[in-house]
């Protein structure tokens, strides 16, 4: 299983924007920049570890109060600036180990901070901004709900260091009262429980899996090819509905989320009966 290092986000943010610094007044843990992407000027956002963060439980790459509210304000800024012009694409580079688990965070309502970031991403999508999430490392639980999961299109690297999951293995084993080994066995057989990105791809939620030899040290050629994929995803998002129905309409989802599709069909039929 992959270890979270927190370096991938910075590497890819720099690859796309040529820099790796926060905007003026922002905490060091949130990188924001506008940079050319195809014919667009896109806004790139990334959460990175800041060992000196003000909140002690958010110093290792967790998404905490400051990170979530900074993301929210930087996205709302784009919605406001592009109100009467072409809607800038927003690219969330995702490599986040978890939400911040702390008492201060709970007291100051981290649930609202996280909701505010998701609100900003979702509102930007509804306003017509193509939102693309590029998962370059970890995308776990509340952190992914906060940063990336409201995207029109989700792309991820086909790499052992990439993990999208509801809870890290040790915690999931504790909560479900299984051993880590036992959980691993279930995880192999049951696609939604798997920690393998290739199994995640079977759920139909991804737009594309991209291959990069070493995501911590991409070549110029690889960076260009990932950029081209982002441009393709943006074009696809622009010609599609602004909701998330594509996640349920994919070929994989029709196989793996049969129950979801049946729920929708039956509920709609009963809704209309009077």
């Amino acid at each position, binding site marked *: 299983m992959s270890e979270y290092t927190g370096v991938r986000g910075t590497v890819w943010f720099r690859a796309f924007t040529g820099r790796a610094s926060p905007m003026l007044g922002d905490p060091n843990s949130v990188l924001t920049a506008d940079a050319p992407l195809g014919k667009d000027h896109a806004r790139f956002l990334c959460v990175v570890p800041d060992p000196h963060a003000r909140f002690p439980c958010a110093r290792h790459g967790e998404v905490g109060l*400051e990170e979530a*509210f*900074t993301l929210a*304000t930087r996205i*709302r800024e784009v919605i406001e600036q592009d109100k009467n012009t072409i809607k800038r694409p927003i690219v969330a580079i995702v490599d986040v180990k978890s939400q911040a*688990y*702390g*008492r*201060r*965070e*709970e*007291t*100051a*309502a981290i*649930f*609202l*901070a*996280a*909701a*505010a970031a*998701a*609100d*900003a991403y*979702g*509102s930007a999508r509804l306003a017509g901004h193509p939102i693309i999430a590029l998962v370059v490392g970890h995308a776990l*639980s*509340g952190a992914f*709900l*906060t940063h990336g*999961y*409201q995207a029109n299109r989700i792309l991820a690297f086909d790499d052992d260091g990439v993990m*999208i*999951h*509801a*809870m890290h293995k040790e*915690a*999931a084993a504790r*909560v*479900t009262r299984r051993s880590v080994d036992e959980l691993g066995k*279930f995880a192999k*057989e*049951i696609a*939604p*429980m*798997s920690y393998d990105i290739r199994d*995640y791809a079977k*759920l139909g*939620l991804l737009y594309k899996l991209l291959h990069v030899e070493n995501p911590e040290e991409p070549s110029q050629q690889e960076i260009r090819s990932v950029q081209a994929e982002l441009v393709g995803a943006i074009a696809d998002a622009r010609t599609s509905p602004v*909701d*998330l129905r594509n*996640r349920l309409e994919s070929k994989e989802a029709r196989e793996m*989320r049969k*129950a*979801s599709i049946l*729920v*929708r069909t*039956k*509920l*709609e039929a009963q*809704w209309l009966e009077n």
Partner: protein
Amino acid sequence: MSNNGHGASFINRQSFIELDARERATALFDPGTSRELLGPFDRMESPWLPMQGITPQADDGCVVMKGKIAGQAAVVVALEGAFQGGSMGEVSGEKMTAALDLACADNEKGMPTSAVILLETGGVRLQEANLGLAAIAELMASILALRKHAPVICLMAGTVGCFGGMSLAAGLASYIVMTREARLGMNGPEVIEQENGVEEFDSSDRALIWAIHGGEQRYVTGLADELVDDDTPQIADAIRHFVSKGVPALHRSSRAALYRNRIEKLDTSGQWDPKEFRACWATNGSNEEKR
């Protein structure tokens, strides 16, 4: 509203918390107007639980009802905390999301329809892990779409509380209604203790837990819109009030700059006493000043 905690006398209360999800949902509608959709006889069960030796439930712990509240069309979705901790699985999640999408479509067709979500949940059902997480992301997207047209009201009444990813869904609500017994937070005390130690959060300290996550604290700090007793008529009255109130001018979760400034002003060098926190948090927009 004037019935904050002192309305009904304790003896005459009709407990809402003691009702199951189906009874709770029914109690919120105008009498005789509600009907259940995708009920237990439709047997929409989790396909993933039996594979893991866990008995599924015929409604997957999620009750969807359509009817009228305060004379207006409304849908109520209630999670059953007694089944798998009210967790979000593929089926329960899709029931909730699809119901909100149908309400949204009705609004777009000119038929105003509100939504009430009854949350008794620890978040993602870990046996369905990634489909549960995806369901929450999609639910959040549907709340955002619906609340442009009609209010989405989240009610937390019982002691299961609302945690994990579902706390983000609650964060997107137009209005939040809580009892003193209910809790709302992203990470439960046990999870925090596991991740960052007992010094960070002592999960056996019941008083501390309710002082931070409890309905009263959330209401006083402006994070919930109404505090109600565990009394069915009072809760139904609060829901009618917010259905009638309509869409708020600005949703709480859209006020990023306001809250970002508040966070910036907090001294993070030590832990906070929840009571003292009320004072440094409540500068504007909180219910402390409204009282």
